């Protein structure tokens, strides 16, 4: 079996005195789409923030392509090819679409390929090309999410992490988005996505992990997990309206 691109082993992490992740382990292999599902507060966002260095690792190891990345600052982890599209998009609101994209290509390796990446991104999201000189804050929610994804892609990452990518998007926009993600996958991108939209995520996923109270309690192929009774129970009990998202 090939070496995993990302391997998380026994990681504990959290905020100040609150330990959110309790011995969390998972793997993402090159070219996979791995979904991370679970109820609110299970630690999905915390795990993504820990992988990208925004939160410190208190115990355990994180390896990217076999090399330890735990303990490195976020910019160094980004330089090794990990990008995160954070929850709430975190665009540079007063800056234009193009300025946001250019900042996405801040890393020297990405900067040298900037023109080419921009061309690919405008192919993927033609709307962004029409709005290059518009400030990010006046875009619609769907366009902002596109820009957030595009800004992450500008860094030419090896591993793309998505935190709740479909949050607050209309159904039509979500479908358009899933299509874009499939196109990115076809180019060979590796994705680790967390979120509440269990059905959409599991349909995209090659494999999935169910997180509960900071631990992986279930893992397997996306389609299989979608049928799993424990997943249904865990999500339906804890998220209001989850039964609608599930069916």
């Amino acid at each position, binding site marked *: 079996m090939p070496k995993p691109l990302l391997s998380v082993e026994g990681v504990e992490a959290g905020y100040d005195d609150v330990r959110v992740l309790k011995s969390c382990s998972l793997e993402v292999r090159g070219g996979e789409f791995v979904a991370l599902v679970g109820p609110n507060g299970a630690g999905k966002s915390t795990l993504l923030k820990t992988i990208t260095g925004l939160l410190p690792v208190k115990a355990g190891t994180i390896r990217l392509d076999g090399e330890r990345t735990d303990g490195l*600052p*976020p*910019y160094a982890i*980004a330089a090794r090819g990990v990008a995160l599209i954070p929850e709430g998009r975190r665009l*540079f*609101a007063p800056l234009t679409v193009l300025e946001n994209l250019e*900042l996405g290509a*801040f890393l020297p390796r990405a900067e040298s390929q900037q023109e080419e990446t921009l061309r690919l991104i405008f192919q993927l999201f033609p709307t962004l090309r029409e709005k290059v000189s518009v400030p990010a804050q006046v875009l619609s929610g769907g366009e902002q999410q596109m820009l957030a994804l595009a*800004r992450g892609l500008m860094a030419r990452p090896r591993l793309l992490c998505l935190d709740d990518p479909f949050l607050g998007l209309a159904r039509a926009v979500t479908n358009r988005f899933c299509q874009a993600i499939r196109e990115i996958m076809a180019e060979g991108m590796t994705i680790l996505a967390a979120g509440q939209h269990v059905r959409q995520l599991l349909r995209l996923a090659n494999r999935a992990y169910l997180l509960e109270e900071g631990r992986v309690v279930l893992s397997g192929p996306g389609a299989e997990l979608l049928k799993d009774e424990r997943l249904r129970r865990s999500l339906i009990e804890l998220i209001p309206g989850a039964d609608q998202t599930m069916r």
Partner: protein
Amino acid sequence: MSSHTFVQALLSGILLGCFYAVMALGFSMILGVTRALNLAHGDLIILGGYLGYWLWSGSGLHPLLLVPVAGAALLPLALLCQWLFQRLPEPKELSSLMLTFGLSLLLQNFMLGLWRGEYRIIASEPLTASVRVGSLVLNQGRLIVAAAALILVAALYLGLTRTRWGRAVRATSLDREAAALLGINVDEATRTTFLLAFGLSGGAGVLFATLHYLYPAGGIEVTLLAIVLTIWAGAGRLRSVLLASILLGVIETLTLTWSGPRWRELVVALMLLGSLLARSGGLARSRSR
């Protein structure tokens, strides 16, 4: 008021505004990038002024030549403050108030010890003359100070928008976490900001000392001016700070010409209050994401 007096007051106001901008920019930059209110800001400017005065009275050099010297002299202090700032506990908005208030007291007493309480000014011959443009009379010192201020603002603006480190500073001031995720070393960007802001303040101090008397506790007024202008303009927005400063300078000068010194401060205060109410605060708005 005749149109001639109006134009004269307008021009003097613009010159005054440029001077205000260079007084406020360092403060605004540090607030934008670190969310820290630097209460020692004015004291840094006075310190720069004293250094300029000391060098000028010793060497007789043109004061403008001393602007970069005084700026460079404050750089080690910038590194020290950034080092201390990094070690402050969260929330830094509050703990930095304690740090910078303490620094302010230290600097004031340091200056009191070195230069006593006497009033000093750089009374340089080439800066006190008047220039006639048609029928308008402008103070040459103010003209030179305004030009120097504009050059500093322009250089800073170009640096922040056209260079790699400038883009890092800008992104960090807009969203620290998002910037870090894009591979930007936000600690380094913070250090760059401290260096730029302190250097700018040291240089601005020399300009200050050519127009106003220096005394060790004089920094408080400058800090207040910087706070007012920054709140008005929105933290870390260079162009808005320049615009707000010029507007303030013009309104101040017009009120002065119109009604004499009695109404100046009242009109300025009312105008600031009114504009803050009208647009619900530049500071608050620039903080929301």
